[in-house]
């Protein structure tokens, strides 16, 4: 059987193909692309690209589960399942002993508390505000004229602690401009921005009452940001596991869910 999971995020669309049985053996393939405005088309392209890597085509796929904010816009999906459930499935597959997942993408932050079987017990999402998400860091990186991938590393070089007075994505931009005008080091501004993001995420983590010794994993694009991970590790007082490709975990979960559809 060949199954696909496609996770349509606000910034990136990810796909995972899983195949097993009937002479296929077992195989895995993944692909990612910026989401853009045509969700059905980009989803098709991403799944197509992942299939191409294993010399297959759309016609070979038995089931597709779509997830992410664009999940309902995909006409060819067999079923839509939320990114909460899919992320938990993906995390459990990679780290069976993890019971707390932090998934921070372009637009959403999600905290998922699971049991030892990977079933969701409780979840929380950020409110309707981009502060505490990837978008906030992206806008901040633009204002600081630093490549997004370097933002976390640069912030770790901060030597002076400053506090952002606003964590509104729009007003933070203005504040960054005035801090630069006052010759504040970019490293210090970046560190303050990361602290604001981490504080938001930490508040959400607490809202699901995580177990004191829960093993924690972080997924989503923001998990690539070393500074956010380190700050959260400090706040939680424990190590946070980050998979090799943290952005693909929810799509992997979607594929696993597709495999188990009734």
């Amino acid at each position: 059987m060949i199954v696909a999971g496609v996770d349509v995020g606000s910034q990136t669309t990810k796909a995972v193909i899983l195949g097993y049985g009937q002479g296929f053996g077992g195989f895995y393939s993944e692909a990612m692309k910026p989401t853009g405005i045509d969700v059905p088309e980009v989803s098709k392209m991403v799944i197509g690209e992942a299939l191409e890597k294993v010399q297959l085509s759309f016609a070979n796929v038995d089931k597709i589960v779509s997830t992410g904010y664009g999940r309902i816009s995909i006409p060819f999906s067999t079923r839509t399942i939320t990114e909460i459930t899919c992320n938990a499935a993906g995390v459990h597959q990679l780290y069976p002993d993890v019971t707390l997942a932090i998934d921070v993408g372009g637009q959403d932050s999600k905290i998922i508390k699971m049991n030892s079987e990977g079933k969701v017990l409780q979840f929380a999402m950020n409110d309707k505000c981009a502060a505490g998400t990837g978008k906030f860091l992206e806008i901040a990186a633009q204002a600081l004229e630093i490549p997004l991938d370097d933002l976390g590393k640069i912030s770790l070089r901060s030597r002076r602690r400053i506090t952002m007075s606003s964590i509104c994505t729009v007003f933070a931009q203005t504040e960054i401009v005035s801090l630069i005008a006052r010759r504040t080091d970019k490293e210090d501004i970046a560190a303050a921005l990361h602290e604001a993001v981490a504080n938001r995420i930490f508040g959400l983590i607490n809202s699901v009452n995580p177990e004191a010794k829960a093993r924690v994993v972080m997924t989503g694009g923001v998990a690539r940001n070393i500074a956010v991970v380190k700050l959260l590790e400090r706040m939680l007082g424990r190590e946070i596991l980050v998979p090799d490709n943290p952005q693909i975990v929810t799509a992997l979960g979607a594929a696993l869910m597709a495999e188990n559809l009734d």
Partner: protein
Amino acid sequence: MGEETLKVNQRLEAQKRLGKLIQGHYSYAREVEKKKDQLIAWTTSGAPNEILWTMDFFVQFPEAYAATCGAKHAAHAHCVITETHGYERHLCTYCRNSLGSTLAEIEGKGAFDPLARPDFLLVANNSCILITKWWEHLSHYWKIPMINIDSPLIVPGMDQKEIVDHVKRQCMDLINFLEGFTGKKFDYDRLKEIVANGKRSAEGYREVLNANRHDPVPATFFDLIGHNFPNLVLRFKPEAEEHYKMMKAELEQRISDGIVPMPNMKYRLYWDGVPYWFAIRNLSEKLQSLGMCLVTSTYFEVFAFERLDPSRPLDSVAENTAMFYLNRSVNYKAEVTEKIFKDFHLDAGVFAYALSCKPFSISMHYIADTIQKKLSAPVTIIEGDLVDETFYDEERNNMKLQALAETLAAKKR
């Protein structure tokens, strides 16, 4: 009763009767406004309104009007009028709706189905920290007097009797003021009669709400919310009690006939907060599609008025005001919520955060947290803003509801 023997009938007969009661109330308001043979008061839900009814005021509720405007998608236009007069967007949307409709009427622009123009304003600060200021602005625009009943928050350690006495003293001041304002003597026998009607209405209201303890429920939360109206607006008349009696009989009949309000009821849910009035249909359809039935809510407690007692009329009116649900501590609210979860056998909770309603929303996280910790029931916090549709993100809320359904499904497996 087995799933296969249940019959789905979404429409309650009580809805038709409720429609007539509401229509009758507002048609009568038009007549009063035209004939000017009765004074009109605008008041808040937690105020000692039995005093107004005893003084023969025709009583209207701007909060209930805001809910109607929200449900009819008319509130946004009122809110915009308020904002163009310089009021900020972060003010309560009920307040913005009310000031906007008032300004539209005063400036001759016409509001959506406006309330009859008031002669007097009564407010109690037991429901909200902003409401006195909201009423102050109404008083300013209508150029009419207002009286505020101060009802301190009931928190542990406070002397409740002292608070009730404090409210009672103000009720007596209100009576003195109204005697001067109307030129009429306050009739304590009439008060007793009105309080007796209110008590019977409140008892009937509670019985109707309790019908949903049954599994499967005879009605959903959405079917019941409109039925706050008789206990809020008409409890001084025997019609309110009559309505609940008939409604209770109908709900009991539905239970014995195996009639349910929706198909495929898999999970029993709690609702916390004020409904997003403009989104009721969407939410109802979404929840139904996920097999989730909203069973009950502490929102109903706001309209319970169970302290009324004709054997001590004025004292009980003061007590009813002081002990108003929204005036209680967050611990009390969490305890009531926990009890409701147990009594109604609820599986999960939907907490409806309202952006501009801080008094309601500030307790929400604590209550949700209590439910998670004590009952291990999953909860989700969705977002909206009472009657302002512009803040509502349907897809985002739908995603949270779907995730809640998936969580419950996984729990059952």
